[in-house]
Every structure is written in structure tokens, then in C-alpha cells.
């Protein structure tokens, strides 16, 4: 059940970025800012390129873009042209900017009716004339239409009987922007071609991005090596970038190495991880209009080096030195920001990373510089004098959801925001840097709330140092995450496999990868990809949905026997290969009659595709390449010993798998580049049929067996009631082998695992103990049982995972029931730790903008009234618990700050937690097991004992008087014997009452010591107080609670001590 096989994949980027903006204005005479001298020791070492000695120059390409020039000095050509800039690193770590000249973009149209090649010059003239009428083309030096020629090929879409070659016109133009402009004219039929009748032309490949076009033409892949013959290189006189070397070359002289064999290696890549701190005002999240940037921490590393090149923090105001790091202090914020620009320019990193830098740090810095009117700041790219611009982008993708984001022109620096990577690739309960670091690095970091940051900033050099240490850690962690998760390696491999620049992987959806592959493969075979208007496909109305994958209705229950799982390996890719499903093999309904029946395959949904003997589909070929490359990568991985190579190969095989799975989604993406619902519908139809076939085959070949559930690419089989794991595995293997034979290659049914026992709750919701070998189980596998949802409190997740553990691993149904009862009893008796009951929601817009009454908003208003200064601000997550309130008081009004609850002993509404949070998920799990008895979990003896704490302030407490009471029976003790801990009746039991209180004291002391020493360790200092305010941490509430509990218990304890001070000697 592969998540990436979602039927509708529609990534669209709405970029306000226009090609025009690529023609960058160069700010006049921006002096290299005056702080560069501070950082010279971090500059790249000056290794000569060796071209003088006639060595070819090899560069690992990391990013590319292009510029528009009025005249090309290199070509000595005075017409407007696009020059592609490649940013890369040599093997020795030198940064090189390669300017590639001479490449002109092109596209295709179908030939006019009765076209005669002698008319080509006429047509070219007509087109040029029409183009010149466009105002936006006026500035173009030299001709717009550079070339017009006849191209023999075929359209990628549809197989036409007899497969005739068709003539197209290939139009080569001066600049990338002209492609769209001319294509639009031609599509509208707005060009007068003299003797040819005016008609709307079909355009092909006009929507291909210029850079992708360039890469396809030069056979260049993302993050691949390019070789520049030394005799073809020209070195410009004037340096235009911060990079070490600049080279000019003609595009035909480039040698691009596909990423195979020796060209799989990588070069030393410089990665800068940074973090900024801002001094916000009380109660308001920092805003660049008002709040200063006070520190910027930088952690600069190079791949392949174990030690960082620089650990530097730039601070506003003096800051005490930090061992192991360099502190550079400035007197003004403008200097601080300028110094950072110098730092970037000198250190020249290839990759910029950090945590949420795209949506916080970078925009903040740019906006802040704007507020400060700091004209020298926004030059963060690698080109001298090119201003960094920020744009809003919106990426909507069914796989990643809709994200609003920012994009930056940072020529040559690739922004890899670890937050974005994690959100894309991992499903987590919380994405705070803290919890992510704990999850992946096992490191907790101190969480300093932004209100404390300002305080520390206004302190002295030592408090600012404290802040700087914190800031450095925030810069260091993203780099560690990147290393640990091997994000850069994996993404580089993905760029290599799919053939697109690294930066596109992050800024665009899955589709661009398939587009690249399709173009590369198709163009090599002379197949042209038609330009589709969005959703303008002929197949039917917009929004027509086709049947999704089949789900065999689950037979719910708790199976205490092995359940064999038969999976189709890479289901959709293998269907496409097996049945040759492709754009280029798809036969129009009206054309089917002209084909021989043995030449095509009809899918269960009624669409026809020619057999590979007639023409092999491009998609099949792409998939075959990807999957066989994956096989090779996996084989190499098994043989490799070098850890670095292993990580590359593993990244590669993952990238290949992701890319293969993206192909199916591409065909179904209704708003994509080339949607074809017939293709995706056929694929799913085959899939459904296969699941059905498998079910009937299993049930007929293995009598008494039963398919209890099936979904998309797998079926769950119960062979017999009484069956050992071994027998079940043998039968599973046998079934997989037999049934595989009834499907065309490469479709393969695989047996990989058994579930034993298996709890089937409903479709897409199940849990089981997973076995791949008979000795030990592999893990507990849960699907669709939400334990990571954030709007639940942790108690729910904990109880459910524990219950599943008891049911599946220990197979102790009664134990699970007892556990649930005990938990419920603990909950009602107020013994559950408050941190497990906390729910937190983000205050994502101003309180007034929320329509409905939501708990966290109501609480926010309450907190704001209590103390505007410490109240959370926009963007903060507000943790709350639900307390008891007046009768009929709505739940949202009963939300309260957990710390406030602890300090005031407010009673929690434990029944609310039981009814609204625990009950439903538990019922779902237990119903298949104990049926209607499930309600007994929530009723009965264990729910009778209820403890409610007495609030220490407000309400009834205003009318009470504190008096000393007996610690044994709580009878008030008369004033006369006020010193006594016990009343005279309890006196006889003194020892046992003493012991009881002692028991509490000991337990709280133990907790106090454990919790507070842990915080001290996390914080990374033993001599300084803990400030951390990370409410995600399991310790946060407990350590506050234990202080209070211990103080209370100790007070009771002391009453005994006062009463009997040790005898004086």
C-alpha cells in the first residue's frame, strides 16, 4: 500500500517569478562590504584549476540559472541571448562559475496543411515580422526567430495505426521568453503565413523550462559532473561573482557525464547552517518592522570533513567568549547584518540550511534590512551586485499538501531548509526543532521562549553569551539533522536520477521529475510532448473521477493465527510495464478498428494500448530503466563497505523507487502537465482485477483458505485456523509463486510477511505483529490507528500503543483490559501526569479572526487578560488542559494553562478526557475482540473512585480558614497543641502515618533529582539555571509539579521533625 501511489497528483506552482526578472539589474558599484577581513580565514583555499597545464576541468554541478545579455562578448555576437550559469565545485573544493554560451531555446508546431519546405524562409520572415509587433520583444537585439526547420517525429500522445512519421516545424528563438509568446500567437492562429491558411497550431514542448531544455540538450543531469576541455575554456578578465573561478565556454563543448560509475562520486560541498535571534517585545512574536536582529550564528561545514570550518556567532552588543566558537560583536544592527553578508561572500557556501529559514530567518533578515534602509544587505547570492529578491510562492501538491512559502533569488546558493525536508519526508507529531532533534539525534535542546531572549539580550555580556550558545546550537542542529538523515546525499541522488537541478526538488512537486524523465526519453526517440492546456483533455468533463483502487471488504476481527500477506511488488510500475501502458501506445477509440486484435491490449476499463511488439511505451522504458538501475544500486549497496558510498547508494535506490512511483501519479494528475485519465484509470483497473483474481485463485487453490482483506497492492490470507507460523509462511510462499505465473511479467506477487496475531478494525485500519522469519517478530505494525495526531493528548497515544502491545505481543487480552481499567481508574483519581493530558494548538491568526469558539483561542484571551506581557503571541502553540467548570459550561471555556492548573491545584475534568478522548479509539480496538462487552471497560467498579483536587484559590476557598489538621485523620488540631502533627487519637499510629508521608517524600525526592539533573544536562551547563520552556518535553510539567509536590510533602514531614528535635547532648 504505497502512499506515493495516490491517484491524483497535481502539483502546481504558482510563481509570480517571471522570466523577465531573470534579466537582473546589477546594482552600481556595490563595494565589497568592509567586514570581509574578519572572515578571511574561512575562505576557500586557492587551488589552481590546472587548465593551464592542459588538464580538463571537472566540476560537480550544484545549481544553474541563466541571464539575458544584450550582446554576447564570448561569441562576439551582438544579439540578445540567454547565457546559462552553472555553479559548481571541483574535486579539490574550488568553486567555479561556468557561463555557457550559444544555446537557444526551441519548440515545435505541427506543419501547416500542404506544407512545402521551400517556403521555410518565408514562414520564418512572417513569424519574425509578427513577433516584432509584440511590445515585449522590442528590446531584443537581432532576430527573434533564429531558425526554422522541418523536424520529422511523432507526437508522444496516441499511437496512430501504421505509426506514420509526421513533419513538424522546429522553431528556435533568441530568448526563453519568446517561446511562450510565439507559442501563444501560434496557438491562437494569430500569425499570417502568407499563402497558408490561418489556423490554430498545435504546439509541442513549448512549456519546457529553458534550463530543463538546456539540460536535456546537453544530456546533463542534476548534481552531475561536467567536464570542460581546457582548450575550450576562456577566463574572463573581470570577476562577476564571489566564486573562486569563472569560465566561459560554448555549450557544444561541454562534456556532461551521466551519474554512473566513477561519476557517482561527490565533491567537497560547503554547507552553511545558520540561525538568527531577534529581540521581540513582550507578548508579541518578533516583527521585522520593530524588532532588532541581535545575533546570527553560523555553522559552516564541508562534506567529507569531520570538523566544521567555522562556528561563528555575530552578536549585537558585547558578548563573552565561547569556548570552541568565535564571537564577533558589533555596535549596531546594521553592522551586524552587513557583516553577515560579508561572511556569506567570503565563505562562499554552496548550500544554505537551517530550520525554517525559508519562512522565518531569511525573510526576517531581508525585511529588517529594508526597514533599516540597508542598501548593502540584500546581496546574498554568489553574483556580485545582484540583489536578492523574495517572492511568495504557493506549492500545492496532493502528496505534500498546499504550502505557502517564499522563494529567493540567491544565484548559486541552494536553500535546503531542514524543516521543509522533514515536513515532506517524515510524518511526526511535532516538527519543532526540539522534538525533531530528540527524535532523530537523541538530543534535547533548550527551548528559550522569545520573551526571555529579549531579557537575556538586555542583560550583560554573559547573558548575551548564554543566548549566543543557544543560537549556535540552533545553527548546529539542522546541520546534524541533515547529516544524520543524509538529506543532502539523498536529494542529490534524486536530482541525478530524475535529471533536474537540486533546488527544484524542494521548490516543486513530484511531477517535475517525471516531466524531466519523459522529455529525456521521449526526445531521444523523436517523440514530441504536446502542450496541454490545463484540464483541457478530450477525455471528458473536468472532475470526472475514475474508480480508485479496490478494497476487499475487510472481515473484521481479532485473528489469533498467522495471516499471510501477499504483495504485488511495485504494483503500478509493473502493471505499466506488463501491459505496455503509455501515452505513446494509447490508441484512440476511433483508431482501434484499424488495428489487428493481437496487436493491442484492452484494459479492464476499456482502453486500448498497442503491444510492445508494435511499439514499446516510453513510460515502460523509463520504468524499466529506473527499476533495473535500482536493482543495480541495491546490489552494489550489498557489496559496498565504505559508509559514505553506502549512503550514496542507499539514497540512490530510494530515489529510484520514489521516481518510479511518481510516474503513475503523473498520468493521473488532473491539473498536471500531461494528464491522461484513460491511462491512470486503466492502471487502477488492472490493479483491481489483479486483486480480485488473486483472491479467487487463492481461495480455489487452497481450500479452506480465506482472503480476509485486500487493499490496492496486497491481500491478507488466512489459510486455516490451526496453522503454525512456519506452515503459514510456506503456504504464503507457495501461493505467491503459483499466482505470479498467471500474471504477465514483470508483475510479481510476493510473499514477505505474516501477521500473527492480527487485529483488523476496518478498512485501512489494522494492527498486527509482523513476522518475516519464524524466530522473532520484526515489529508491531499499525496502520491507520492514529497515534501521532496532535489534537489528541499523549495519554491516548500511550494507552493505545500499550494496549496493542499487550494484545499483540503479550497476547494478553485480560491484561490489556486490566491495563485500560487501571488507566481509567488512574485518570479518574487524578493520578495521570498532567503532561499526558495536554493538548496544544497553534494560534495561527489573530484571536479576533477565529469564527468558532476554540479552546486555545478562549484560553489565549484569558491569558492575555491575566498578563499581557507573558501571554503567547501569534504563531505560538498554546498548550492547554480541560478543567472542571460550572455546570453546562462549554468545553472551550474550560481550557486552562497547565502551569496555572498545577500552581492552583485546579481540578481537571477527567470525565471529559475519558468520554471525549479515550473512549472512541479504545472501543474501536476492543470491539472486534470482546464485542459488545466493550462498554464494560468504561463502566463498573474501577470508575467509582474519583478524586478531585481542591483549588487553592478562588471559589469556595475564599470562605475557608486555614487551620492545622491532623496528618492522620485531618481533624483540626486545637490551638493549644498546634505543634503536634497528629491528633491524640492518631498518636498511637504515629509510625505508620509517618511512614506514609515519608513514602511520598522519598518518591518526590527521587523524581526531583532525576528531572532536574536531566534538564541541567540537556541545557549543556551545570553551573547555570535551567530556562528551557519546551512544553513538548515530557519533563517540562513534571519538573514543575514535583517541586510543588515535594515542597508540600516536605512541609508535612517537617511537622514531625519540629515536634521532636534531636536530643541535645
Amino acid at each position, binding site marked *: 500500500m504505497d502512499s506515493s501511489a495516490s491517484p491524483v497528483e497535481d502539483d502546481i506552482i504558482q510563481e509570480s517569478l517571471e522570466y523577465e526578472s531573470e534579466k537582473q539589474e546589477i546594482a552600481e558599484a556595490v563595494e565589497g562590504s568592509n567586514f570581509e577581513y574578519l572572515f578571511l580565514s574561512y575562505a576557500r583555499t586557492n587551488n589552481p584549476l590546472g587548465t593551464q597545464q592542459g588538464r580538463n576541468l571537472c566540476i560537480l554541478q550544484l545549481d544553474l540559472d541563466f541571464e539575458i545579455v544584450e550582446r554576447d562578448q564570448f561569441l562576439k555576437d551582438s544579439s540578445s541571448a540567454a547565457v546559462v550559469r552553472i555553479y559548481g565545485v571541483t574535486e579539490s573544493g574550488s568553486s567555479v562559475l561556468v557561463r555557457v554560451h550559444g544555446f537557444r531555446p526551441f519548440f515545435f508546431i505541427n506543419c501547416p496543411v500542404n506544407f512545402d519546405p521551400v517556403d521555410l524562409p518565408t514562414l520564418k520572415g512572417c513569424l519574425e515580422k509578427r513577433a516584432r509587433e509584440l511590445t515585449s520583444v522590442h528590446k531584443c537585439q537581432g532576430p527573434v526567430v533564429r531558425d526554422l526547420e522541418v523536424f520529422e517525429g511523432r507526437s508522444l500522445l496516441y499511437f496512430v495505426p501504421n505509426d506514420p512519421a509526421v513533419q513538424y516545424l522546429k522553431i528556435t528563438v533568441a530568448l526563453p521568453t519568446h517561446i511562450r509568446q510565439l507559442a501563444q500567437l501560434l496557438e491562437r492562429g494569430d500569425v499570417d503565413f502568407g499563402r497558408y491558411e490561418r489556423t490554430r497550431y498545435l504546439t509541442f514542448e513549448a512549456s519546457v523550462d529553458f534550463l530543463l531544455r538546456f539540460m536535456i540538450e546537453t544530456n546533463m543531469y542534476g548534481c552531475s559532473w561536467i567536464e570542460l576541455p581546457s582548450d575550450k575554456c576562456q577566463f574572463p578578465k573581470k570577476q562577476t561573482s564571489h566564486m573562486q573561478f569563472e569560465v566561459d565556454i560554448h555549450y557544444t563543448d561541454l562534456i556532461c557525464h551521466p551519474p554512473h560509475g566513477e561519476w557517482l562520486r561527490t565533491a567537497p560541498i560547503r554547507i552553511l547552517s545558520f540561525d538568527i535571534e531577534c529581540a521581540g517585545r513582550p507578548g508579541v512574536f518578533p516583527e521585522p518592522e520593530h524588532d532588532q536582529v541581535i545575533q546570527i550564528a553560523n555553522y559552516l561545514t564541508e562534506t567529507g570533513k569531520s570538523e566544521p570550518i567555522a562556528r561563528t556567532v555575530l552578536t549585537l552588543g558585547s558578548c563573552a567568549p565561547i569556548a570552541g566558537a568565535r564571537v564577533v560583536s558589533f555596535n549596531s544592527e546594521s553592522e551586524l547584518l552587513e557583516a553577515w553578508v560579508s561572511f556569506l561572500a567570503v565563505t562562499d557556501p554552496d548550500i544554505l540550511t537551517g530550520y525554517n529559514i525559508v519562512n522565518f530567518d531569511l525573510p526576517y533578515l531581508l525585511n529588517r534590512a529594508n526597514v533599516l534602509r540597508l542598501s548593502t544587505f540584500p546581496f546574498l547570492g554568489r553574483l556580485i551586485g545582484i540583489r536578492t529578491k523574495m517572492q511568495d510562492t504557493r506549492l500545492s501538491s496532493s502528496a505534500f499538501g498546499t504550502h505557502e512559502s517564499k522563494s529567493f533569488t540567491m544565484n548559486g546558493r541552494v536553500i535546503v531548509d531542514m524543516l521543509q525536508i522533514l515536513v515532506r519526508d517524515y510524518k511526526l507529531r511535532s516538527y519543532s526543532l526540539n522534538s525533531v532533534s530528540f527524535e532523530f539525534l537523541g538530543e534535547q535542546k533548550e527551548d528559550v521562549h522569545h520573551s526571555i531572549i529579549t531579557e537575556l539580550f538586555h542583560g550583560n555580556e554573559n547573558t548575551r*553569551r548564554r543566548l549566543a550558545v543557544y543560537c549556535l546550537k540552533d545553527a548546529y542542529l539542522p546541520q546534524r539533522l541533515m547529516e544524520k538523515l543524509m538529506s543532502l546525499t539523498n536529494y542529490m541522488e534524486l536530482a541525478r536520477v530524475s535529471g533536474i537541478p537540486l533546488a527544484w526538488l524542494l521548490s516543486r512537486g513530484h511531477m517535475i521529475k517525471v516531466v524531466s524523465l519523459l522529455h529525456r526519453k521521449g526526445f531521444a526517440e523523436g517523440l514530441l510532448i504536446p502542450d496541454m492546456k490545463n484540464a483541457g483533455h478530450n477525455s471528458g468533463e473536468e472532475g470526472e473521477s475514475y474508480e480508485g483502487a479496490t478494497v476487499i471488504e475487510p472481515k473484521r476481527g481479532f485473528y489469533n493465527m498467522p495471516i499471510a500477506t501477499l504483495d504485488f511488488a511495485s504494483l503500478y510500475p509493473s502493471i505499466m510495464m506488463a501491459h505496455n501502458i503509455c501515452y505513446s501506445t494509447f490508441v484512440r477509440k476511433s483508431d482501434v478498428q484499424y488495428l489487428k486484435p493481437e496487436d493491442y491490449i484492452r484494459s479492464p476499463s476499456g482502453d486500448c494500448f498497442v503491444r510492445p511488439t508494435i511499439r514499446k511505451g516510453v513510460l515502460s522504458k523509463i520504468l524499466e530503466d529506473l527499476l533495473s538501475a535500482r536493482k543495480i544500486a541495491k546490489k552494489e549497496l550489498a557489496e559496498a563497505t565504505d559508509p559514505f558510498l553506502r549512503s550514496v547508494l542507499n539514497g540512490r535506490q530510494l530515489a529510484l523507487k520514489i521516481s518510479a512511483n511518481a510516474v503513475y501519479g503523473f498520468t493521473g494528475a488532473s491539473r498536471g502537465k500531461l494528464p491522461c485519465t484513460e491511462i491512470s484509470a486503466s492502471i487502477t483497473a488492472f490493479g483491481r482485477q489483479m486483486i480480485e483474481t488473486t483472491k479467487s485463485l487463492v481461495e480455489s487453490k487452497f481450500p479452506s483458505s480465506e482472503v480476509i482483506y485486500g487493499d490496492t497492492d496486497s491481500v491478507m490470507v488466512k489459510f486455516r485456523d490451526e496453522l503454525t507460523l512456519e506452515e503459514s509462511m510456506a503456504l504464503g510462499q507457495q501461493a505467491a509463486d503459483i499466482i505470479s505465473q498467471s500474471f504477465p511479467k514483470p508483475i510479481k506477487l510476493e510473499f514477505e510477511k505474516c501477521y500473527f496475531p492480527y487485529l483488523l478494525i476496518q478498512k485501512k485500519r489494522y494492527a498486527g505483529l509482523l513476522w518475516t522469519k519464524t524466530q522473532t517478530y520484526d515489529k508491531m505494525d499499525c496502520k491507520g490507528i492514529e497515534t501521532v495526531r496532535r489534537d489528541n493528548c499523549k495519554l491516548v497515544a*500511550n494507552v493505545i500503543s500499550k494496549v496493542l502491545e499487550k494484545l499483540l505481543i503479550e497476547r494478553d487480552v485480560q491484561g490489556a483490559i486490566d491495563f485500560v481499567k487501571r488507566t481509567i481508574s488512574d485518570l479518574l483519581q487524578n*493520578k495521570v501526569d498532567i503532561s499526558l493530558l495536554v493538548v496544544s494548538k497553534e494560534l495561527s491568526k489573530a484571536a479576533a479572526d477565529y469564527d468558532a469558539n476554540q479552546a486555545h483561542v478562549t484560553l489565549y484571551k484569558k491569558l492575555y487578560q491575566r498578563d499581557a506581557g507573558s501571554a503567547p503571541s501569534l504563531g505560538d502553540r498554546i498548550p492547554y488542559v480541560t478543567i472542571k467548570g460550572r455546570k453546562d459550561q462549554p468545553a472551550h471555556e474550560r481550557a486552562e494553562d497547565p502551569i496555572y492548573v498545577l500552581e492552583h491545584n485546579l481540578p481537571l475534568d477527567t470525565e471529559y478526557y475519558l468520554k471525549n478522548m479515550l473512549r472512541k479509539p479504545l472501543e474501536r480496538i476492543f470491539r472486534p475482540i470482546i464485542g459488545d462487552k466493550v462498554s464494560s471497560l468504561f463502566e463498573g467498579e474501577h470508575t467509582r473512585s474519583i478524586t478531585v483536587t481542591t483549588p487553592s484559590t478562588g471559589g469556595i476557598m475564599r470562605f475557608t480558614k486555614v487551620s492545622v489538621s491532623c496528618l492522620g485523620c485531618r481533624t483540626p488540631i486545637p490551638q493549644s497543641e498546634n505543634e503536634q502533627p497528629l491528633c491524640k487519637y492518631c498518636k498511637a499510629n504515629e509510625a505508620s502515618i509517618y*511512614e506514609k508521608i515519608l513514602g511520598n517524600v522519598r518518591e518526590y525526592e527521587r523524581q526531583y533529582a*532525576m528531572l*532536574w539533573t536531566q534538564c*541541567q544536562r540537556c541545557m*549543556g551547563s551545570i553551573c547555570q539555571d535551567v530556562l528551557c520552556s519546551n512544553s513538548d518535553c515530557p519533563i517540562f510539567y513534571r519538573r514543575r509539579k514535583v517541586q510543588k509536590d515535594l515542597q508540600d510533602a516536605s512541609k508535612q514531614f517537617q511537622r514531625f521533625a519540629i515536634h521532636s528535635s*534531636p536530643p541535645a547532648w
Partner: protein
Amino acid sequence: MNGAASPGVFYRQTVDYEEGNNSCFLLQSPIYSQQYSQIYFCRLAALRKEVESSARSKWTGNVLFVDRLLHLQQGVDCVIFGVLYKEMDLKPSILKEYSKNPAEPVPVLPVRPSFTSDTDTVILEDETGRIRLNFENCSFGADTFLTGTVIAIKGQETPSGDFSVDDICFPGIPSLTIPYSLENDVFVMFVSGIGLGATWNIPMREAMFLDFISGKLGNEEDYRFCSQIAHLFVLGNLLCDVGQETLMKKLQEQQTVNAGQQFFNAEHLISADRFLTTLLSTIPVTLLPGEMDPTNFLLPQQPLHPCLLPSSSKYISLRRVTNPYQCQVNGRNILACSGQNVDDACRYSKFDWNSVEDRLLIMENFLNYRHLCPTAPDTLPCYPYYEEDPFVLKECPHIFVAGNQPAYGTRLIESAGTKVCLLCVPDFSTTGQVVLLNLRTLTSQVMEFMIDLSS
């Protein structure tokens, strides 16, 4: 004083007994709103001068002494001071426990003889910062050090930001007074871990012990010898049934909060009370609480409450004291503890849990560090002191004794021309051994009570 007035009647010798300064160990009204950082801060403040002067006498010549870590300069040979902190992968962590089992209210941390590993790193910290120590260029390793030790280090900061160690220096054993000499042999006895209520306990051994002390065992020689024993120290774990785990279990099993629950077995308390009463009628006793005894958990442990020992508490010859505890007997300073500090130091350094020699070395190190329990509070729970660190040793005891050790062991060390006796007192319930120390010579001997059931 003198023993035999007439044959058959021996009078027990008496000693001059003076309380040490234990007021800082007695917590009158503890507060818990503070954190642990203050205790390290105070410790460093108290020992900085000491370690500096000892370093200055160790490293003479042209050495740069850097007063605060933040003034450290890269590549310059210098001496720095601070508190050690050891980062250890195996160090039990409540966070690790939570991630293993998030439902657990407050998990019990695993306990084992050693938590050291090859990846342990040592960090030096002062009020202004911390720096990682690198032992590549010296003969020391991370494994001998303890978190919380105040130290001076000679070396230089490397370009990678570590501090490369050439040599180290501790504050050194503090000064001690030369005690007046004694003419006669007089003994004090140490016992620990009697463990009343332990399942493995052999009640007859305790009876023999009582008989011996009260002079009912053996011949006249034995009686005479016994009369020379002037005082008995019980170094913790008189009882045995308050293991943290059993306590935790009881707390968890408890279904309702209001039921008056008893955590300690009343029977054991009664037998302890009876045991003490019998002892007290023949010998004065100083009673330190230990890990297993019914008192608080954090160091310093408070004296056992009289209500637990109703009849023995009435004896004036019983001193219920704190753990740790100091006193002066015949002018000899005794510093006694129930052994948690030594155990914890074993767990977090390379020292062998079962080797008594190693344990004596740890005790000697404590004197050198001028600290009674450096690993508190990091791994050894202690009260969050905030005005001073009372565990800092201001003067050296003549006798430093730790209870509940795996075996008997002793070592005499010289300091400033005077002998200092280090003493490991074994656990009685497993060994049947008690230790006798001659106050005149500071030599000790072990005595074992054994019942040969075969005969």
C-alpha cells in the same frame, strides 16, 4: 577507665565523644523551588582558591593561569580551572526511559555496576563557559574522572575548540590537626548493612553479634577485648525493606489514595527497635541512616525519626545522626558515610565495583578532590543546596569510613606528617563481618560472625 577491677567483671572503656559540625547536614526547613546549578556554583567558588594554590605549587615557572574560561586564548599554554562534567552515553537518563515507555509516570532508572563506555567525554565548566577536554597527549583518560570534581588543568586550546590536557591537579588533601596520642588501646566498632528484614538474613548471626558486644560470648580474653570497644557506629541499612523499587511498586499498586498504607514492615521496625535497645544497654551507638532505611532519599539523609524506634530512642546513649556525619572521638576526627557516594563513584568511573582496593582509592581521591560526593547531584541525588556546598571538605578527617561496601578494606595514608585511615566496612547481612578500629594506632581488624550449620 581501666578494665579489670576484679576477675570476671569488665568495665567498658569510655571515650571523649564530640559532635562534629553537622548542622549543614540537618535540614530544618528545606525548600525545593530552586535548581541544582547553585550547588556547583558554590562548590567551584569554595574550591577555586584551593585548587589554584595547589596548582601554583605544582606547576612553578612561567605558566599562564587563566582566571575564567572565557579569557582562554587558543594555542597558548595555560592552566584553567573548573568543574568536570562527564558526558556518558550509558548514563541512565529519564528522557531515554520516557522515549522507551512514554506511559510510565516517572520511571525507575536502571542501576548497574558500571556506566562507562569508550565514548565518554569530559568537559570542564566554570561560571563562564565549558570546554571539551582532550586527553590524547597525556596519560590520563576520561574513565578515572568524576562529574562534579573541581580541578586545575594545564594544556592548550586546540584549533578545533577542545582543550588538550598535559597535566592535571586537584585541590589535594586538606590540612588536618595532629591528634594527641593515646596511651592505651581503645576500639570503636563499625557495622553496616545489618539489614533486618532481609530474606537472606541469618538471625542467629545478629544474636551472636549482640552476645559478643554485651560480653556474653567467648572466654575471659574475649570479654577483656570486648570491654576495650568503646563505641559502635552503625553505618546505615539497619533495615532492608525500603528498596526504591518495592516502594515504587507499592505506590503504583495502591488503588485508592485514601487508604492508610504502610510502606515499611512494622515487624522489622519493631525488631530493629528491639535490636538497638539490646545494644544500647551495653554500648553507646551512633546510628547513621543508609539507602534502605526509612528516612528521606536525598543526601544528606536525615536521622531516623524517634517514632520509628520508640523504645531505643529513649536511650541517651543512642545518637541518631545524619548520613554523612562527622564527629571527634578521643581527638580523632571521624567522617562517616553509608557508602552511596563510593558506590556512585564506582558506577561512573573505571573503578571495579567489587574491588575494595579500588574503593579505597576512590575514598582517597575524595580527600584529594576535597569533596565527599562529587557525583552529587548529577548521578547521586542530593538536596539542592543553594548557599553553600556542605559536602566540600574543609579539613581532613583522621578516619574516613564508608559503610555497605562489598568487602573489608583499609589503608593508611600520610598527609602532612599524620596518618589518615581509610576504611571500607562490609555489609553485615552478606558477610557477617564487623570492623574494629584501634584509635591509638589507627589500625583495624575485621571480625566475622559465622554459624557453621554443618556441625
